[in-house]
């Protein structure tokens, strides 16, 4: 019961913090909605409002260049009162979504899959945080709070991903596939998580049941469930909007081809502003291929730790997806404390954290210098996004190193604590 009380305190505190910020600073949500670090063209709440305005007036929201989000958000948000006049219901709703996400994190942590799975059990599994601490770390992370107040629709993708993980770690593989289908329907990139997630489901199934399901058939069945869920959601969307082709080209086509080069914290926007026209398609392909390449490499090498592969892939997405925001980074940071036992093995934490803090503090300042003050140019903000990406990728590489080192020590107990090299 004591744990429950702690959990209630953390969740209540998080809800209170969000509502308090809204009451104390009523202009904060609109300010954060306008920030490029929080809202991207595919998650912006203001664009959602515009799409909603057109949708409620029977104009196709996809016959225009502003709205590129999933169609199912439209009927859902049309139920909420106008956020310009009544901001509170929307804020409460977004805060509740955050709590739901935190709850999924608690489930993932309590399942213990992060420290011991089917093939592998970490050596330092006694060094770990409990679920409530991880939820608190997520809920009181300033990035999460900013995303919540900025009403980015990326939080729904986060919910889908976290619920897919939570269901997979508790052995409910059907729900995991449905949740991942929902996340992929909202924003296309979570589909890359499918293979490690199926492996996680399979490992969990083998651990729980006596009979071992055949892996090929298991994967095929789960892929079918995943595909069916997406087809079903797209079917409902087509019924809602009507024109399937316009819908797909305005949502998925937009996310794949990256025509809107609004600044964000990622690497794509400035690159595709400056790239020569004849190489645009080539580099678009290269960037997507690069993003997808991590999935294969990590899955094969870290086959024994599928949840770690999923976590690292979220880190990869936070750096390399076309329209990243701080909400993607906050999702990665939310899952990292599950690997508290790897922290002692990490080498460059100070450097990575310094780079991230530096980018966090200077990013808004340099953006202001470029856009408003006019005393800096685009390179200022671009340089900061480079530092941000560099910091995140150092952190990512360092955790991968720590996980591999942990596996090595697990396999060679006699070499534990010795100086090691990679050849």
């Amino acid at each position, binding site marked *: 019961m004591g744990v429950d009380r702690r959990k209630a305190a953390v969740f209540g505190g998080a809800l209170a913090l969000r509502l308090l910020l809204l009451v104390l600073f009523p202009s904060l949500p609109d300010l954060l909605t306008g920030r490029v670090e929080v809202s991207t063209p595919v998650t912006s709440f203001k664009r959602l*409002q515009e799409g909603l305005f057109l949708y409620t007036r029977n104009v196709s929201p996809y016959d225009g260049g502003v709205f590129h989000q999933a169609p199912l958000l439209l009927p859902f948000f049309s139920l909420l009162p106008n956020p310009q006049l009544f901001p509170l219901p929307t804020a409460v709703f977004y805060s509740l979504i955050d709590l739901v996400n935190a709850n999924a994190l608690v489930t993932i942590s309590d399942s213990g899959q992060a420290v011991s799975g089917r093939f592998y059990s970490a050596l330092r599994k006694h060094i770990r945080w409990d679920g409530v601490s991880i939820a608190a770390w997520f809920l009181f992370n300033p990035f999460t709070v900013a995303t919540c107040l900025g009403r980015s629709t990326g939080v729904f993708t986060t919910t889908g991903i976290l619920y897919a993980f939570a269901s997979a770690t508790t052995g409910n593989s059907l729900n995991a596939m449905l949740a991942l289908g929902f996340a992929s329907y909202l924003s296309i990139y979570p589909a890359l998580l499918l293979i490690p997630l199926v492996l996680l489901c399979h490992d969990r199934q083998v651990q729980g049941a006596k009979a071992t399901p055949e892996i090929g058939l298991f994967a095929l069945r789960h892929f079918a469930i995943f595909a069916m869920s997406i087809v079903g959601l797209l079917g409902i969307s087509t019924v809602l909007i009507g024109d399937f082709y316009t819908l797909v080209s305005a949502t998925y086509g937009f996310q794949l081809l990256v025509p809107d080069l609004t600044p964000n914290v990622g690497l794509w926007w400035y*690159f595709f*502003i400056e790239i020569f026209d004849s190489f645009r398609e080539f580099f678009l392909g290269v960037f997507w291929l690069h993003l997808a390449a991590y999935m294969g490499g990590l899955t094969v090498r870290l086959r024994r730790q599928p949840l770690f592969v999923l976590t690292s892939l979220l880190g990869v997405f936070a750096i390399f997806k076309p329209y990243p925001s701080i909400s993607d980074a906050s999702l990665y940071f939310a899952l990292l404390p599950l690997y508290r036992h790897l922290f002692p093995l990490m080498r460059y934490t100070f450097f990575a954290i310094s780079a991230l803090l530096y980018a966090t503090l200077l990013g808004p300042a340099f953006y202001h210098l470029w856009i408003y003050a006019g005393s800096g140019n685009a390179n200022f903000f*671009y340089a900061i996004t*480079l530092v941000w*990406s560099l910091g995140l990728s150092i952190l990512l590489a360092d955790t991968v190193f720590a996980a591999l080192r942990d596996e090595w020590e697990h396999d060679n107990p006699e070499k534990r604590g010795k100086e090691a090299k990679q050849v």
Partner: protein
Amino acid sequence: MTLLSSLALLLLVALSSLTSATSDYHESLILQPLPQSSLLASFNFRSNESQESFDERHFRYFPRALGQILRHANTKELHLRFTTGRWDAESWGPRPWNGTKEGSTGVELWAWIDAVDDEAAFAKWITLTQSLSGLFCASLNFIDSTRTTRPVASFELMGDHPASSNLHLLHGTLPGEVVCTENLTPFLKLLPCKGKAGVASLLDGHKLFDASWQSMSVDVSPVCPHLGECSVQIDQTVDIVLDIDRSKRPRDNPIPRPVPAEQLVCDTSKPYHSDDTCYPLESTAEKYWSLTDIFGRTISGSCPLAEGPFHEDPVCLRVPHDRQVDVAPGAVETKKPDGFTRCFTLQPSTPFDLTIPEQETTSQVPLDEPVLRAERTIVGHGQERGGMRIIFDNPSDTNPVDFIYFETLPWFLRPYVHTLQATITGNDGLRRQVPASEFIKESFYKPAIDRERGTQLELALSVPAASAVTLTYDFEKAILRYTEYPPDANRGFNVAPAVIKLGSHDAANGPNHPIYIRTTSLLLQLPTPDFSMPYNVIILTSTVIALAFGSIFNLLVRRFVTADEASALRAQTVKGRLSGKLVAIRDKIKGKRAKTE
């Protein structure tokens, strides 16, 4: 020369009797002094060609070059405008021709094209813009799909068209186009007298484009004055507002100089007035001017083609009748009964000049009050987002004004229609927030698609009497690819003016001709990337990506060994063996040296 021209005239008269009686040519010039020492000169040239001759490609007064383009592009009605400057409605009153012959700043073109469907119409439209671009030396070929709209309610057919035709209206603007002499020369070439005779001989590029405001228009439409007797009419106008003082400056010495001290009229009532201090008094007298002063030349006689038995006098001047006007000998003056207009005839091959001496006057030509004042501005700061503010001011104390508001926005300006808000300022001067639906009776909104089409917004609005309605909405500025910026990217991008149409050809209200008002064009600042470093950006981004990819895949493909094992392994590699040999050789040499010592 005179023999030749009279021969040509004879030939023309013979021809005209052969073809149709409707074919004719008219030209006129109306001069009207405006407040603040300005002068409005409205030139109008109108000619007809019967529909049969037009279809048989038989052109007399109608310019052949334009006729061929129109036939080739299936264009049934054409309206082309070249405009620079701003009409100062506060001082100058309502616009000439009720704004129907005026265009948006830059070039504006709209046409009705006969085609089976929208796509065919657009293909013909591209043909039309390309051909007109060549004919008028203007960048009309830059009117692509992003600058083309299909207005629903803002423009109406001016001519009489057969009911069977399937007409498509297309509209395009180039707000950044600089109108200059290269556009005037082809414009004058369309005239039967080519600007060599008649009122068109006054048009000189140096003076015309030095004006405070000028607008050139070409309108082509079929007209059927009598049943079954149709003709194609071309109506060309040039309207200019010239600053009299500025135009009177000699061309070889255009720098304004201070009035000599002895000619200054001083206000002697000022306490500081003395021999060397003067408070100059504004002259109350109407200024002296003449056609030669203002236009730099005289009218070189009448255009012989414009003469006919029913032809009205071509040059009219709108000043009070008590104003003294001196004209060149031979010209006949006719005073019109309205008390303000007098017209003059022109003689063939005789220069015509008109001089108005300085004179103290009490009466003025009254100017009407504009029915609506409109103002459109961009508000907000920063290059990320902004807002549009449109103010409609109805000066009438009794009548509400109904009108159509039409605006096109480039695709890189992304409006958020859900933020559309209205405030009204009444007689009491208080601003009240009201729902926009209170004024907007109907709306047509077509959102932009990136790099494909612009935004089109048409609103049917009604502004109550004696009040000003302000509409505002937010927009976001897109950041473009670096090749999409013009060379002067930091100057900003031109946004086409909004068009406001009041009244219409309403059958119930009789011949109620529409009035058009256009706002000024806007300058939009977009965020700009650094144009100097595409290579650096490609290299730096690739480096960061390569660092992440390299470090992660380096970890993934290598295996762990202890430090001891690592050195042992290194010894087995080719590199290890080589370095081992080197060490051995070095040791040998050292050993030898040690021995010799």
